[in-house]
């Protein structure tokens, strides 16, 4: 969805001379996605004009191995090639959609998926009775519209003609879903011309849509589908364009956040490798939400006293300003691109600290491509202080000590009170979960909550109109603290809302712990 809206942004801002009617999604959408990827990773200045964008993509490192005959022809990029999505899919899927009943059943499965995928847990799972009521009311329309269309159709193949009137949106959705998945796993797809794209997608359509209900599983897994469906992965690999026997194009240089780090990367090749690997090993995150009711509270039940159902009820009564910040924090921690950019800058800054410190052990670590826990912690604390976030505290299981911060004794009556006080006071070192000092790369970590605080600082600043303390004040209340677990201590193993995921990422890829063995 984010890529699609970025594509629309680029279309309307950078291509003012193009009318929407001229922009063909199937041809241009993957290319725009590759262009967006290049802009974000290469930190390029955007260009205007479709031809210029095409040239940037085609001449980039991403397209290096694509055979010339399959490459986009930038001189012709503005000529559109119309594609009837449904007819294309039907043709590629062979006889899978020859039965109207099968097709209508397929429509219904997709409608159920669309509802399930974008609707809050309450409607999905609170009571299945209510969920059935909600969903079935959409079936009223499916059956009505089909019969209406049937009444207007004439033989032969009256039934197929009737259902054909309803397939426009469906066809486009299927094509975009497949194209987006291919694009996410295969950046070179954006380099291909119309014919090459059609050929690749057509081969995949049949496998994904047989049986048709299998497409719902494909929709659920999204970009993970390549891993989840071994046949798809195999087919996908078979279809990847083979490099021609020509001289390899020169590699485009990797762009680093600062000149100082660029010099370090040039000096310490292993450090450069560590940096370049960051984007490849990040967790997938979670789909963005527009309201706290859309957060998957059912994924985290272990640490929250309040049930998911109750959380959903409470989300409905949340004040809009707090709802906005909860959403901003959640989405930031689950935005893979945002977290990639964050980690790259953090690691670069931490490495620069090590180089400046210049101790023998720091230089040795830089040579090995290691950015130490200490460097990261120091960098983090410095960032928070520079931002005016100065009230550091420490909490632990035995005592929720709050360091030098004095609290009104009447206010603090229990450990929960102390935790809430720490949350609203400032960044805190969390000693509540013991760190495995003998090794072990998967632990809660002392400063992971501080990292999360730093990660969401920009998003919170925006959502609170420049006053992020409003969010922390709210989180430190009995009402606000209910959201703590799902934002900062979740059980989602694919998200930085879970501190262990942050630790695991850093300790597997960046810090000295990656050379330790797990206990």
């Amino acid at each position, binding site marked *: 969805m984010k890529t699609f809206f970025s594509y629309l942004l680029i279309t309307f801002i950078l291509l003012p001379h193009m009318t929407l009617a001229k922009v063909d999604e199937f041809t241009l959408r993957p290319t725009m996605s590759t262009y967006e990827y290049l802009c974000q990773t290469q930190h390029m200045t955007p260009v205007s004009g479709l031809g210029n964008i095409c040239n940037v993509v085609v001449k980039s490192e991403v397209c290096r191995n694509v055979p010339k005959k399959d490459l986009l022809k930038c001189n012709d990029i503005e000529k559109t090639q119309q594609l009837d999505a449904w007819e294309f899919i039907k043709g590629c899927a062979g006889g899978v959609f020859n039965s109207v009943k099968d097709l209508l059943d397929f429509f219904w499965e997709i409608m159920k998926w*669309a509802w399930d995928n974008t609707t809050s847990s309450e409607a999905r799972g609170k009571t299945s009775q209510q969920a059935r*009521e909600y969903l079935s*009311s*959409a079936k009223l329309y499916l059956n*009505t*519209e089909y019969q209406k269309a049937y009444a207007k159709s004439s033989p032969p193949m009256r039934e197929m003609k009737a259902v054909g009137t309803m397939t426009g949106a469906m066809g486009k959705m299927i094509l975009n879903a497949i194209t987006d998945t291919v694009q996410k796993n295969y950046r070179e797809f954006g380099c291909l011309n119309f014919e090459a794209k059609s050929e690749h997608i057509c081969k995949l359509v049949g496998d994904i849509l047989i049986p048709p209900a299998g497409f719902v599983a494909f929709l659920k897994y999204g970009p993970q589908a390549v891993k989840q469906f071994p046949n798809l992965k195999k087919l996908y690999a078979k279809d990847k364009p083979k490099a021609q026997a020509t001289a390899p194009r020169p590699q485009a240089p990797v762009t680093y956040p600062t000149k100082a780090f660029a010099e370090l990367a040039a000096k310490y090749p292993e450090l450069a490798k560590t940096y370049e690997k960051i984007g490849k090993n990040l967790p997938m995150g979670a789909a963005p939400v527009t309201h706290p009711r859309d957060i998957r509270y059912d994924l985290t039940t272990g640490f929250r006293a309040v049930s998911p159902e109750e959380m959903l009820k409470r989300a409905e009564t949340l004040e809009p300003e707090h709802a906005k910040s909860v959403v901003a924090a959640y989405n930031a921690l689950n935005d893979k691109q945002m977290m990639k950019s964050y980690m790259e800058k953090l690691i670069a800054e931490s490495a620069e600290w090590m180089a400046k410190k210049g101790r023998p052990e720091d230089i040795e670590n830089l040579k090995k491509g290691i950015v130490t826990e200490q460097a990261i912690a120091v960098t983090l604390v410095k960032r928070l202080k520079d931002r005016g976030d100065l009230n550091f505290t420490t909490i632990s299981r035995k005592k929720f000590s709050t360091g030098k911060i004095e609290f009104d004794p009447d206010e603090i009556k229990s450990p929960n009170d102390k935790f809430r006080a720490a949350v609203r006071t400032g960044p805190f070192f969390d000693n509540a979960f013991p760190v495995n000092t003998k090794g072990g790369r998967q632990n809660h970590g002392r400063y992971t909550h501080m990292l999360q605080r730093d990660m969401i600082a920009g998003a919170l600043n925006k959502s609170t109109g420049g006053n992020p303390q409003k969010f922390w004040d709210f989180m430190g209340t009995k009402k606000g603290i209910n959201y703590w677990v799902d934002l900062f201590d979740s059980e989602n193993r694919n998200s930085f809302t879970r501190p262990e995921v942050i630790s695991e990422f850093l300790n597997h890829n960046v810090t000295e712990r990656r050379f330790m063995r797990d206990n």
Partner: protein
Amino acid sequence: MVFKLITFIVFFNSSLVLAAASDWNKSEMDESKIWIHKKNSDITGTILTIKRDGPLNWNDINKSSFYQRLEESKKRSLGIIGIHEWKASHYKFETVNGVERLMIEGTYVDSSGLEVLFKEIHVFQAQKTIQLLHTRPKALQTEKKYEEDFFSFALAEVDK
């Protein structure tokens, strides 16, 4: 005499219901019965029955939230079949003969681009919900007789 009068009234009402139904072509799909008006195939009526294990406890259900979820489900899934701009102009919960009902009225644009008026009635009986939908082109907005005709025989079926 009174007996004959009552018999006549019952027969007369049944005739009206049957007369109304005869203006429509009926078909069945899954758990639905769909009627298409013989004079204009954009005028429709649909009944869908959903069975339940037990009654919905309206003392525990927030009706406003229930309606919002219902509305969301349509907005999120109807686009798949080419229905756009589905919006309700108003809705109302009411109790009729001890049975909870929900009525929703509004408009949408169908896959052919036609702007359509709709009226839904959900009847929440003990072991099932019966959902009724009437649609007609917005151009026939003032032709309420189609709506009245459909609901007269449809609700008669429901109340059996």
